[in-house]
């Protein structure tokens, strides 16, 4: 191998090690006992592995946070997908008065940062009596995001309308055409939108922090953030908690790696 090959490989390996190292460290620290934390270097494993940190975590209600996070992520993502597909289809395929104006309104809300809406949203939820409820937690985001609607609409427009016309001549209704013609052809963009939604919903922190207060509605992100104040600096437990938050997305990534890398690149193109 010439040095022209060795150099890029060297830099690549170094970059990948740097990208993965924090995950590796989380894994090692989570399985160390309190004594092992001080006896070993951070990058050495604690032998024998100890699950004491996980026991402490689950005793403090972490199992519930995990269940909540899975359920809330699934529910919000399902809602976002359903309502975004419906809206995108209407924008791409139907013609009705006000369509283009509304599409511009949707696009303009891409510019609205969540920090700006959080105070009014909180006060709205207070008026509706939805503070510290599941509805209050999920309602603001689960009706579809403008970004997903935009990506889906752009994709739907690339599907030849003839295909749908043919199905409609055969007597299929709007919903049938959408389900049996449009969606099967839209798998790549559906993977993209689902990935972005799952990552955003799983990681979401500021809104859950504000709107929920009772422990039975707490999500993982809020749970680990409040750790420091509730348990104190206990790196074993904190890393075990972080591992529980990080691992599910990592596993998803390993399974869908090919699609995710391709689909992220799609979102940058206009």
């Amino acid at each position, binding site marked *: 191998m010439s040095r022209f090959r060795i150099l890029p490989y060297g830099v690549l390996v170094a970059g990948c090690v740097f990208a993965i190292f924090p995950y590796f*460290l989380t894994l090692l620290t989570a399985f160390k006992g309190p004594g092992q934390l001080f006896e070993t270097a951070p990058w050495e494993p604690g032998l024998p592995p100890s699950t004491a940190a996980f026991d402490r975590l689950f005793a403090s209600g972490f199992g519930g946070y995990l269940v909540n996070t899975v359920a809330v992520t699934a529910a919000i993502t399902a809602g976002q997908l359903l309502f975004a597909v419906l809206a995108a289809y209407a924008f791409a395929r139907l013609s009705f008065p006000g369509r283009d104006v509304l599409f511009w*309104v949707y696009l303009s*809300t891409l510019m609205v940062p969540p920090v700006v809406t959080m105070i009014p949203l909180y*006060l709205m939820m207070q008026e509706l009596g939805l503070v510290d409820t599941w509805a209050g937690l999920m309602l603001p985001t689960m009706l579809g995001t403008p970004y997903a609607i935009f990506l889906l609409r752009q994709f739907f427009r690339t599907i030849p309308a003839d295909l749908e016309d043919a199905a409609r001549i055969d007597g299929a209704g709007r919903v049938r055409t959408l389900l049996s013609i449009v969606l099967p052809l839209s798998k790549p963009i559906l993977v993209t939108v689902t990935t972005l939604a799952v990552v955003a919903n799983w990681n979401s922190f500021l809104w859950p922090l504000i709107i929920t207060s009772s422990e039975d509605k707490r999500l993982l992100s809020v749970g680990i953030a409040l750790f420091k104040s509730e348990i104190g600096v206990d790196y074993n437990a904190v890393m075990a908690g972080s591992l529980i938050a990080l691992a599910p997305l990592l596993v998803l*990534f390993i399974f869908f790696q090919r699609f995710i890398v391709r689909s992220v690149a799609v979102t940058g193109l206009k």
Partner: protein
Amino acid sequence: MLKPAPRRGRQAQRQRQTLAGYAMLAPSLVGVLGFLLAPVLIVIVLSLFDWKLLATPEFIGLANYRELFSDSDVWHSFLVTLYYVLICVPGTTILSLLLSLLVNRKLRGMKYFRALLVIPWMATPVAMGLVWTWIFDPGRGALNQFLAVFGIDGPAWLSSSLLAMPSVAAVHIWQFAGYNMLFFLAGLQNIPAALREASALDGASPVAHFFAITLPLLRPTMLFVLITNVIGSFQAFDTIFVMTEGGPGNSTEVATYLIYDEAFRKYDFGYASTISVLLFVVILVVTISQFVYFERRTTYDFS
């Protein structure tokens, strides 16, 4: 196509389509109008009120804004935010551009390298914030232990008001460099290979080719990467919440953190709304100026 339907039939069809269109839009329309647009209007209204928890809201006109402009905490937090943006955006952009040049080569196993570099993007920011807090731990943390191998006595990264901000910003760069690399990679792959051959024939070095040809052709991607990163880092909150809580002192108290603090710890919703309006205006102005700057320059289309 079908032969034209009789006039009445067409009108009925149009009505049905309008009805179907609005029915399909209805849920997301509630979301967009109720939970995105209405809050923007409400936050502006709130900023004109003295609105504290349990007290009756009182209209005070522009008094919050007058207070805002003489409030050194607000000025400080916006400067701190700007500092954060000025580390994160160039850091992420340059690193991801360099990475994209590297992973654009045709080497064996490249798709695995690309995938590994993207992984940090999915990390839950609060979880990773805590992991990096552990890495930065002055005594037992991986960074200082690593430096100790070379006989270097590492500093207390997060409790130094000088180093806390660059350390927190490093986490942002670590998290998003690989992700933004994918956008540059897509941009690079749209550039015809013939251009490189042509400039090689003219005797241009790879570096000259990069600055004269590649970089100008990447402008649309550059605009996308810059805008998304600027908007994102102006709103930094999660990692700062777990890593420094705005400290030491107020050296990492970015605008979002200040808004959170005013609204949900001090329950001063009116004043917190005023700060968020200011943040919104700043983000809008910066974003629009980026658009204008890039619009003025020529873009090239090979499609």
